């Protein structure tokens, strides 16, 4: 007998792991706010997919979200390069406009669309166990679990196959290009993965709190390790821990589950910020000063 608690925890964990994996590259690429932008700008994609198919079909939704995620990236770069605007300014213009367009679509066609703004913004993970996927008359379990599982596999495959390209691209896109790495493909691939993760997660945690899952666990892992692979694994682990502990926090204080999960990501970050073995604020205070990088004069001898 699988309880509803199990499904909620599994959904939260899968969302957290997917987001943390691709979010790590956003953080390293210094494009964290692109996660914020995409998570909002996919809204019209979702709304249009709903309107066209008149159902909560997964693939149209993924396609719609993916398309609008990539459009956000493309428009932002277009305005930045051709419109002579700063990168963050272009992003601010593009994602707010697309998000507003999505809000209008939903409010105009609210009657036809089984989708309300509350749900899109905040998500409702508590209802997941009842959102079942019935296939050939068999109960396959909650639908979001399947979608999130699929997206997590997709993200793992993307990072696995393109690990070396992602690594050098995140370190320096310019140098990557000089090596002949297809930087555009990697860039849009990453942004596509972010879009998929966002759309798959938004039902559970909402479009706003998905940003917490994209950015905060990777930032926490970044403080805890100095290697890329451990950072990716740690980010995913911290995301999953946040999801699980957030659920119980929500039960304990009788509050929103999504909100509690986001709060837990923040608490884990704070702990890492204070006690990280290498860079923790308190760790450093209570440890003898370590010498900095050795001066060059000694490097040769």
């Amino acid at each position, binding site marked *: 007998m699988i309880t509803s608690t199990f499904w909620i925890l599994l959904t939260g964990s899968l969302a957290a792991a997917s987001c943390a994996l691709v979010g790590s590259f956003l953080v*390293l690429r*210094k494009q964290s706010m692109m996660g914020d932008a995409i998570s909002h700008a996919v809204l019209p994609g979702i709304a249009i997919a709903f309107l066209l198919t008149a159902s909560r079909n997964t693939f149209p939704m993924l396609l719609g979200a993916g398309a609008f995620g990539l459009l956000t990236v493309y428009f932002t770069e277009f305005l930045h390069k051709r419109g002579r605007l700063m990168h963050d300014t272009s992003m601010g213009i593009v994602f707010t406009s697309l998000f507003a367009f999505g809000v209008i679509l939903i409010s105009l066609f609210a009657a036809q669309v089984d989708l309300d703004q509350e749900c899109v913004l905040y998500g409702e993970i508590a209802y997941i166990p009842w959102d079942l996927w019935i296939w050939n008359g068999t109960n396959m379990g909650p639908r979001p679990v399947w979608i999130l599982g699929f997206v997590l596999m997709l993200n793992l495959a993307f990072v696995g196959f393109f690990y*070396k390209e992602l690594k050098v691209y995140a*370190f320096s896109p310019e*140098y990557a290009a000089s090596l*002949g790495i297809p930087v555009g493909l990697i860039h849009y691939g990453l942004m596509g993965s972010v879009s998929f993760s966002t759309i798959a997660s938004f039902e559970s945690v909402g479009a706003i709190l998905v940003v917490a899952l994209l950015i905060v666990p990777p930032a926490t892992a970044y403080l805890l390790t100095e290697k*890329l692979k451990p950072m990716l694994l740690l980010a995913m682990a911290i995301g999953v821990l946040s999801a699980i502990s957030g659920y119980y926090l929500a039960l304990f204080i009788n509050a929103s589950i999504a909100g509690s999960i986001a709060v837990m990501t923040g608490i884990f970050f704070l702990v890492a910020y204070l006690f990280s073995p290498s860079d923790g604020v308190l760790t450093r205070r209570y440890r003898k000063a370590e010498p900095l*990088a*050795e001066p*060059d004069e000694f490097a040769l001898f």
Partner: protein
Amino acid sequence: MSNKLPPIEVHDLTVAYRKKPVLWDIDFDVPEGKLIAVIGPNGAGKSTLIKTIMGLIEPVSGKILVYGKPVDRERPRIAYVPQRESVDWDFPISVYELVLMGRYSHLKLFRRPGSNDRRIATEALEKVGMSDYAGRQISQLSGGQQQRVFLARALAQQADIYLMDEPLAGVDAATETTIFELLSVLRDEGKTVLVVHHDLQSVSGNFDWVMLLNLRLVAFGPREEVFTTENLQKAYGGRLNILTQVVELAKEKSFVREPGHE
């Protein structure tokens, strides 16, 4: 490798940022096996020139060929050393992993570096005297060590052409000697090396050819012919007075650097 095509051909090249020209009507052929200093005042377009050759900046007009082909078809043969400040040194990778990146241009998509790549990366670290630092995180390096590691990464690529953007900026005397030795070893191996350089005083003893740049190509040729007071005055224009002094002092082998690095 006795092909007669020059390593780099640049024809009628013009590059602009937002309609403001940065390089104007540049035309030259780089000869094989020379160690070349690219000099000119700040904002002369030195970095822009090598980035454009690498295909990182789209020119307004002009044509660039690497061994007679577009650069995209000869990537493994041309190595780029960016400015040290162009990357985030807090990135979570080790010195060794950074050097291994130099091998990526030889690897197809999906392919991971193999044992041969690892051996080459290790040797490259040895050549710059940084073997002891292989496992360190890159944030722990000093400025001179960062330059050495960047150089090791380019060496690991085993290219035929090296384009370096200020590899001697912010290094101490010991590292400067090491880097100049490495550059002349590359030249002696028949490689073509183009170095954006800001220190006029160290040009004479260390480079074969000189390119003087200031929006236009002022002069390009063997050092003895090109590195003259007259050409330097042309290149540095407004700073004529300082320049005259620098050249005088440089002749006396004194210790003067161009004021204000790029």
